[in-house]
């Protein structure tokens, strides 16, 4: 079963140019353990001197079989695995999975829960963009930006920890609402963040936006045309920087996004620099959404009252026999979901994050398919990198903002 085999050039013959076979160009491995490949990504490069002729991405090093695993777990238990897919967008992963279940069983979500979902999802988007900004500028040798970005990201992580008890894998969003209500100090903490963070964005911009070194490394590097973006199914900030005005929060609103006023920053140049400015502007727009959401945060329940799908509050377990039965049923067998299939997409920091959920009527999902933005967006890397230097390739891996846990699932 574990015979030693090798990948030979013959198997990759159709991917490289004829010059590689003759020895004119050099084949070089970049990764999987290269600091600028943002996770474990291997690139097979065909180089002519320092110019990239061909770039063949090889993924799968972070494949964890989550789709297979979810088929063997009840819906609630499987929710815990969704955090582990895209570890920079854990709230968004919970959200899309819960939205899919809620669509299948037609479960209601109370307004307060929806507002908190939006606040957390937008904070998570800022945190994800901060990691992106930090690592992208680190790749381009601007070390200090990385430190500032992670300082503010930690602040958001603290807010998420305050709600769910965990910095990253909180599984705070559950089918039918939230795990529990946010603590009292939540609102103050977020308001404090809203007050200080805009100045911090200006700080990053002061370091980068007009920095000639940064401009030199990003302007007109890796231009993605609008046609190519659509043909290759690119979504998210990468597509919006190429002039595709597509954001699911506006196009197909979910969780009450239609109630908030915000703009979708777009640009037409499609190079690495405008992808940077689109993401910076997106952080400002996310702040606007969080501000509006906080202002309309009213008291109320945070979980649906449908006891067939949502566990009863712990306080009822001591007094109500029915609550005990429901609790027992939900944590042993799980809930039964009607037969059918739905596809639910949300806007993750990287693009369209979709879940195709198929149920056979039982307590476990029959098939869960994750349409992940990193997987689809990574496919344009060969297109972007052709003709650029190896040093620019480092900037290009960063600019499409991939998370390999998201790509490999």
């Amino acid at each position: 079963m574990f015979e030693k085999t090798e990948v030979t050039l013959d198997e990759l013959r159709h991917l490289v140019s004829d010059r590689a076979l003759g020895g004119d160009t050099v084949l070089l491995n970049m990764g999987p353990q290269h600091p600028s490949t943002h996770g474990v990504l291997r690139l097979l490069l065909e180089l002519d001197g320092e110019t990239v002729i061909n770039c063949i991405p090889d993924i799968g090093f972070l494949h964890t079989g989550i789709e297979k695993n979810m088929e063997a777990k009840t819906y609630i238990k499987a929710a815990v695995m969704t955090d582990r897919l895209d570890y920079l967008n854990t709230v968004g992963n919970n959200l899309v999975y819960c939205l899919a279940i809620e669509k299948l069983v037609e479960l209601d979500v109370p307004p307060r829960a929806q507002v908190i979902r939006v606040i957390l999802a937008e904070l998570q988007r800022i945190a994800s963009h901060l990691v992106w900004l930090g690592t992208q500028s680190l790749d381009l040798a601007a070390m200090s930006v990385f430190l500032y970005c992670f300082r503010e990201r930690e602040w958001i992580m603290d807010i998420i920890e305050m709600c769910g008890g965990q910095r990253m894998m909180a599984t705070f969003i559950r089918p039918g609402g939230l795990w529990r209500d946010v603590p009292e100090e939540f609102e103050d903490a977020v308001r404090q963040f809203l007050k200080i963070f805009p100045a911090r964005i200006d700080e990053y911009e002061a370091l980068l936006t007009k920095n000639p070194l940064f401009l030199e490394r990003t302007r007109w590097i890796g231009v993605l045309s609008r046609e190519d973006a659509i043909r290759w199914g690119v979504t998210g900030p990468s597509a919006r920087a190429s002039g595709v005005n597509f954001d699911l929060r506006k196009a197909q609103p979910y969780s009450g996004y239609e109630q908030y006023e915000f703009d979708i920053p777009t640009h037409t140049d499609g190079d690495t620099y405008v992808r940077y400015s689109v993401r910076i502007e997106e952080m400002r727009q996310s702040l606007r959404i969080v501000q509006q959401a906080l202002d309309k945060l009213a008291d109320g329940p945070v979980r649906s009252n449908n006891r067939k799908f949502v566990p009863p509050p712990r306080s009822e377990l001591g007094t109500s026999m029915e609550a005990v039965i429901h609790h027992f049923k939900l944590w042993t067998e799980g809930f039964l979901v009607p037969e059918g299939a739905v596809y639910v997409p949300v806007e993750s920091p990287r693009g369209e994050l979709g879940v195709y959920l198929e149920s056979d009527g039982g307590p476990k999902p029959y098939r869960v398919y994750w349409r992940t933005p990193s997987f689809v967006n990574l496919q344009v890397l060969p297109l972007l990198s052709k003709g650029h230097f190896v040093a620019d390739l480092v900037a290009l891996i960063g600019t499409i903002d991939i998370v390999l846990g998201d790509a490999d699932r």
Partner: protein
Amino acid sequence: MAGRFSIEASQFRGETSLTVMPDQIVDVCRSLRDDFSFDMLSGQTAVDYWPEQEPRFHLIYQLYSLAENLRLRLRVPLNGNAPSLSTIEEIYPNANWHEREVFDMFGINFEGHSDLRRILMPYDWEGHPLRKDYPLGYEEVQFSFNYDEIDRRKPYARE
């Protein structure tokens, strides 16, 4: 369109699915892209209905129309014996990786695909993990008291 192809439409929770025969998938996709402005392939996957054999698989294509803001799902039933159908790579280039993933996970062959290799699993892997007859495996947890015993029968690639 219904006149040219044998298509069945169905609605569920506000989502539209079309059931398309495998030999027509390329023409249906081309028609949807050119005449109905479904210019994006959002996702592509398969579902295994084992032990059912005819059809054993359903291929799922999620299409999106940027101009109309519409979603459409195509379902293609496929029999269990040497499942194979044409690639739609020339219509939606990003089907390249999606089809590689379906090939890797379900063992469905795509005729005319430019680069049909495994994408997520190692290149020498046996079997197709997302098939329903593929068992869900696990790793035995090694503690200090049973480390050596488990280590002896663990399948490593040994020198």
